[in-house]
């Protein structure tokens, strides 16, 4: 055994056997953000043999406050490329598999089937439910972590006969129920705590040591250093999933006229008669926005009649494309003479086109 890992192989409850199990393991990390970074830094350091990386975002300035692998020089670069480069320098013995896409219904089963364990390091409900269902279909455990402000969740789902994410939260919350991380914010170090706890559970699952956090949800509140552990049971119906759902996007069934950022940019050049509404919060808007955009935060969209006067075409943008879709649905209901389009991918996509 490599002397590189001596500090853990000398542990009686770990030893060279557990190290070898790590070396022979294949782990997929979905999401290279706040949770994915600490998970990867430690799994790679500890000697997990094969690591799959999956993300399609670029590094942005406001990522640096919590995504500690990225430096200022990396701004604008694809996360996948940066992470691959740095982790290779950290441990040249690791095999990396790069998945240059987001996890979606059409690729989930194909991608996940090759791995022993999946790490849920995503930042949205549709992907979490997709990971859950794909892992149940394929009979793989997955290590869940999620954040909200000063708080975080950790659990190991679908581990042997143990419960799944749907045993805790049966149905995906609607778009307006629970804010996502971008809207809500997160204290920089909290993903570090939750991500390292995810990495620990991953190692325990792979190396078959200790008690795995299965059937228990760890709820951490950083403001008062509280760790609650909630026991919950397997519901058989959730273990019986045999195929993925039709759709993992709550809004997919609604018809929302959509324009992609490239098309919007070319339309914008030709036609000055449109209105562009940015429905993000004032703070987000101040951070960056397109110069012709006016800011009407989503929660004030009902009161924007005045700006719509005499406009035939209105484009709506937000950070990721989620809130703009919601806004268009609301606007359509109120203003029947105007054509509304939501810009898919939002500012995330837009800034990668024109950084």
């Amino acid at each position: 055994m490599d002397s590189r890992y001596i500090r853990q192989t000398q542990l009686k409850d770990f030893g060279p056997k557990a190290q070898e199990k790590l070396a022979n393991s294949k782990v997929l990390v979905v999401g290279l953000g706040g949770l994915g970074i600490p998970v990867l830094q430690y799994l790679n350091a500890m000697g997990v043999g094969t690591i799959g990386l999956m993300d399609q975002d670029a590094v942005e300035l406001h990522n640096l406050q919590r995504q500690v692998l990225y430096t200022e020089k990396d701004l604008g670069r694809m996360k996948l490329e940066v992470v691959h480069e740095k982790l290779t320098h950290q441990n040249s013995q690791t095999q990396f598999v790069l998945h240059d896409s987001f996890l979606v219904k059409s690729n989930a089963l194909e991608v996940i089937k090759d791995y022993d364990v999946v790490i849920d390091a995503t930042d949205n409900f549709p992907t979490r439910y997709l990971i859950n269902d794909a892992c149940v279909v394929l009979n793989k455990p997955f290590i869940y972590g999620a954040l909200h402000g000063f708080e975080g969740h950790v659990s190991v789902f679908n581990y042997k006969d143990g419960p799944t994410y749907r045993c805790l939260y049966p149905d995906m919350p609607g778009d307006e129920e629970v804010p996502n991380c971008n809207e809500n914010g997160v204290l920089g170090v909290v993903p570090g705590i939750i991500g390292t706890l995810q990495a620990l559970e991953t190692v325990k699952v792979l190396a078959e040591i200790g008690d795995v956090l299965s059937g228990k949800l760890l709820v951490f509140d950083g403001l008062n250093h509280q760790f609650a552990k909630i026991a919950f049971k397997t519901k058989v119906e959730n273990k019986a999933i045999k195929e993925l759902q039709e759709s993992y996007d709550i809004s997919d069934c609604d018809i929302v006229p959509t324009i992609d950022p490239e098309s919007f940019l070319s339309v914008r050049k030709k036609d000055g008669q449109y209105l562009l509404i940015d429905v993000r919060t004032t703070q987000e808007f101040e951070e960056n926005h397109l110069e012709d955009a006016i800011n009407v935060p989503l929660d004030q969209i009902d009161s924007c009649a005045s700006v719509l006067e005499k406009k035939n075409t209105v484009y709506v943008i937000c950070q990721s494309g989620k809130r703009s879709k919601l806004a268009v649905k609301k606007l359509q209901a109120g203003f029947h003479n105007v054509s509304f389009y939501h810009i898919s991918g939002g500012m995330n996509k837009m800034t990668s086109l024109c950084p």
Partner: protein
Amino acid sequence: MTILLFGITKDIVGSPTLSVPTSNISGKKVPNTVKELKTYLGKNYPELNKLSSLAVAVNNSYAEDDTIINSYDEIALIPPVSGG
């Protein structure tokens, strides 16, 4: 009865804990099950009604709607969180 609040429920209520009366001197109905507690809270904080998925823990165990609650139980509202 003191209820611990996590995630968006803490933001909605604006405090990490919430007191719920456990005696009915006032003549009002006192919640005896998880379902009744949810209804009670929803009346006072209508935004809580929006949450279609909300885990309620009684004494550190996941509770179903028909779980009986007592004044000495430790209750926590744990909504799903999505950040990463």
